[in-house]
């Protein structure tokens, strides 16, 4: 598999197998780095952004901060609660 494919898979594994269905970018990056130690922040971000555009991943935002998640996993639109600004 190519580099991008590897990162893609690592993101997906992290997002679908971890305890949390919504996670911060930093935690996802750490998850990817466990499999691909030299993965850089911007590299992972670019792949994750693509996956969002394709509808594989999604953003979850409270307004003050933003998390990532695998689309369809865990709480979604109608059930949520957090505060921020």
């Amino acid at each position, binding site marked *: 598999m190519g580099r991008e494919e590897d990162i893609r898979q690592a993101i997906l594994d992290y997002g679908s197998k971890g305890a949390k269905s919504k996670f911060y970018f930093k935690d996802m990056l750490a998850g990817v780095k466990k499999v691909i130690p030299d993965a850089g922040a911007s590299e992972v971000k670019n792949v994750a952004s693509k996956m969002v555009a394709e509808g594989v991943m999604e953003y979850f935002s409270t307004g*003050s901060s*933003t998390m990532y998640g695998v689309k369809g996993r865990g709480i979604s639109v109608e059930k949520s*609660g957090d505060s921020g600004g």
Partner: protein
Amino acid sequence: MGIPGQEKLWDKEEKGHRTYNDVRIFTDDQLNNYTEEELKNFKNKHDIPMLEELEKGPWPSFVSDLKREALHRRKLGKDNLMIEQDVAEDLLGLMELSYKEGETHWKHGGIVGVLGYGGGVIGRYCDQQQKFPAIAHFHTVRVAQPGGKFYTTDYLRTFCDIAEYRGSGITNLHGSTGDMVILGTFTDQLEPIFFDLTHDLGVDLGGSGSNLRTPSDCIGPARCEFACYDTLDMCYNLTMTYQDELHRPAFPYKFKFKFDGCPNGCVASIARSDMAFIGTWKDDIRINQDAVQEYVANKIPRDGGGMSGKDWGKFDIQAEVIDLCPTKCMNWDGKKLTINNAECNRCMHCINTMPEALRIGKDTGVSILLGAKAPILEGAQMSVLTIPFAYAKNPYDNIKNGVISKIFDWWIEEGKNRERLGELIQRMGLKTLIEVLGIPAMPQMVKEPRSNPYVFFKEEEVPGGWTRDINDYRSRHPR
């Protein structure tokens, strides 16, 4: 992206400049569709006795404004609106309930947004959806404000039409980040709103969440002679450079740039942004001695006329300028005004008071301050002066490469989740910050001697390190 055939709707080459009349949604009659008499007799669909108390005070009340909007929408009719017509009425009803119970009925957050964007839309839902169906969804859409907040009326009217047609009609100009905010819309209207904003107004969504927030700036050289650099250009340039950071979140938390053209700080960047750019100068304040004489002779009104309208007595240059200079670097001998510029801290007081006599220097640029924030995790914090002076000229590569990218890399690497830059600086110390930036410790970083001992020497920076020849030492310092 866009609807096939309409991709170039905003393209000036194809369509020419478009005015409100080309894109307007409502007619004049629809916009002015109720009388003051009708407003007096208006009754909200939910009783709101507590809220109505708020209308009795001396100030304009948002309750009165919302009633106007409620009546306006009732008369527009649901066929002319894309979301429910009684949004304002349900909002008033829900607020009354919250006032009564002392509890909020808003749920916060969720997966809403426009495709590919990780910010700009903030999901809000009401937990009393049966009772208040028109505000079951009440999402916020942040719209990037133009530089210096300069609008044409065509622009504002188009914005208001979109907000009315596809949202609640309730807006907030401006949110605390600076954006224009459309308050209250449903999920199915988000993509259409985005399409209308980008195609009819040529404007983008602003930032929210763990993104770069919409950068904001003062009016700068467009209208203000104090501007030490082109705030409008720099704000726009950085906004375009950091589009990815604005729309696709990978920061630990929010990040704000703000641009003040001079130390008067009209956008308060020093207190409100993670990276504040404040205009400054290196050379001397320019003095026009003839104009100074005219101020002293009361021929030019002080403060640019800002103190007219009341008799403040004769202008007293000694009491009103010289004695108020914070660094005491000015002198007036009755004939000539002199300034010891090396001691001036560019507080702007003398220039504000006598703008025709005193002008900012000619060798201008910015001071860069880092780490201000409002209280969320830790308390509120002012920014730290980090780069006393940098030139600020398009394309700003010295600042982008020398400061911004280093800060972004460091913060993404070291920052904890939901930790602002200011908190990271506090946790790691100013010494680490200046190492990251590769700059020397400078006296300007220290507020006053012995009060903020941030900077410690490292062993390799000290000649001979931590070890010394004790015999050599004792030869000079006997026990």
